[in-house]
């Protein structure tokens, strides 16, 4: 813990608090055991288990990294290496509604950057940041595979298609 300079923004985030002991709640534990039964190695269960952990705790905290490394008999560095490689594992908490705007070419040609800019202005948010009430996080993402219904905004697990500034405003008003 001593090798990161205290001013390094990651110094606090990257290390687990040894006092926090995590365990999956019973329902998640059951799912975890089912996941393990589907693969010939424990390591192969890592991606699905990370998804499960994120569903359970909302993000992949250093404590989660430590917990999963024990569960799957991997080093914390291996687990963290995987977490940081993939986009969908949140390395910090995100809002209740995680707004992900596709800006790749097909969406861009249908003005997704206007949607993205509008969201940032309306919520006064920088990309990747969360509103102070913990409600919204905005992120620019790569192609979501729904180019025929561009522009597309993914909110949590759901796709919202053919978005306009008006339809987006309506949608946001409905998110409580």
């Amino acid at each position: 813990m001593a090798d990161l300079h205290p001013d390094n923004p990651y110094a606090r985030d990257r290390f687990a608090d040894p006092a926090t002991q995590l365990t999956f709640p019973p329902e998640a534990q059951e799912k975890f055991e089912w996941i393990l039964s589907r693969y010939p190695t424990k390591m192969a269960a890592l991606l699905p288990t990370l998804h499960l952990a994120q569903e359970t705790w909302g993000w992949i905290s250093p404590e989660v990294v430590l917990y999963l490394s024990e569960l799957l008999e991997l080093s914390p560095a291996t687990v963290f290496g995987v977490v940081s490689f993939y986009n969908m594992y949140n390395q910090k908490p995100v809002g209740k509604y995680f707004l992900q705007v596709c800006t790749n070419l097909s969406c861009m040609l249908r003005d997704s950057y206007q949607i993205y800019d509008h969201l940032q202005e309306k919520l006064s948010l920088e990309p990747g940041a969360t509103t102070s009430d913990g409600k919204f996080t905005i992120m620019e993402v790569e192609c979501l595979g729904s180019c025929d219904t561009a522009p597309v905004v993914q909110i949590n697990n759901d796709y919202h298609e053919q978005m306009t500034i008006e339809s987006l405003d309506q949608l946001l008003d409905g998110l409580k």
Partner: protein
Amino acid sequence: MQPIRVLSANWGKPDSMLISTYVDGGGYEALKKALAMTPEQVIQEVKDSEMRGRGGAGFPTGMKWSFVPKNAPKPTYLLCNADESEPGTFKDRQIMEKDPHMLIEGMIISGYAIASSPMSYIYIRGEFYYAFTVLEKALAEAREKGFLGKNILGSGFDFDITVHRGAGAYICGEETGLIESLEGKRGQPRVKPPFPAVVGVFGGPTVVNNVETLACVPLILKNGAAWFKGFGVPKNTGPKLYCVSGHVRKPGVYEFPMDISLKELIYEHCGGIPEDRKLKAVIPGGASAPMLTADEIDLPLTFDAVMKAGSMLGSAGVIVIDESACIVDSVWRLSKFFAHESCGQCTPCREGTNWMESVLDRIERGEGREHDHDLLMDMSENIGGKSLCALGDAAIGPVISSIKKFRAEYEYHFTHKTCLPGTRRYRRLGMAAVH
């Protein structure tokens, strides 16, 4: 040419994702037929159909299957590549959401043909959550009906499928990246050889097939290789799903025999370009495919014809760009994508894609230097063919083709410090690139 409804036969039906709809339309008949054949006969039928893989590379499917060694010490695995992340491609999601049993039946037959281990996997991109839930339900239905599990339909063949969600990494669509990711690692492609058919996932021989490819398998078994070859032209056979997006009036997934003309597809079936603007460029096969100009679209969308035209059919993701778009801006956006998705393993790709993105950005900002397009060509030469997988080659496709075909527009940016009149950029330049 009229659109066909073969792969998309059930899509319009209200409960198209249910097993009852699929069985009513003759579903799982091909499985019964296949299980009465020997695995070799099944492979031969698929070989005879001349089907080429629908994931992008266009490799003959039957031949891929025949590379699997017979007496390997470790189990053989069948993996379905459902990581559909190529910008401009959205056909596999439609199959999984609207007719998941077609894929499932295709996997069971394919698993039987290659003597797969009792467990196989669908690697689906993490963002496709809805498709994931549809597949999970469909798999439960298939298990209940005895199409999955032990001793399928009394044949002695055991087979089951697990849906494995990715977590947002384009590179996991590359087959060895997918294999690494399935094993629980970062999705960094492997050195080949050994090819997956010899050493793949968990050390066993592995076949990785695209969703659309696997969905074609029941059609081939049910109707015969000759029927399948009736669509398209020799060596480019079968029904094909084409994804059209960008500047067209009616974007969407269209099914045609595999020789529909690109021009006809855009102008007759997709309604042409909004406000009758002129066509500028078309990307025929997803972001990795080099661009074609308006003069080059009179061509059949087969693997061979598009390759001959200097591009590739790839995943058949057609992105249409009209005259109102700044070409440098469009290419910048693709470069940004490749820079973001480079796995970081090979230096030419990791450094080169980021460098290309920043040079394109400065040209677009009017800060380009006179020889920046030559610099981009030079960089492309040093990225192409110098990395383990095809991502580096994909990243240079749009850059090289746009410089060759739209050189004057690049030069306009150098001399006038702005975009060509009548073209627009789609983003505010104040924004910093986010990776």
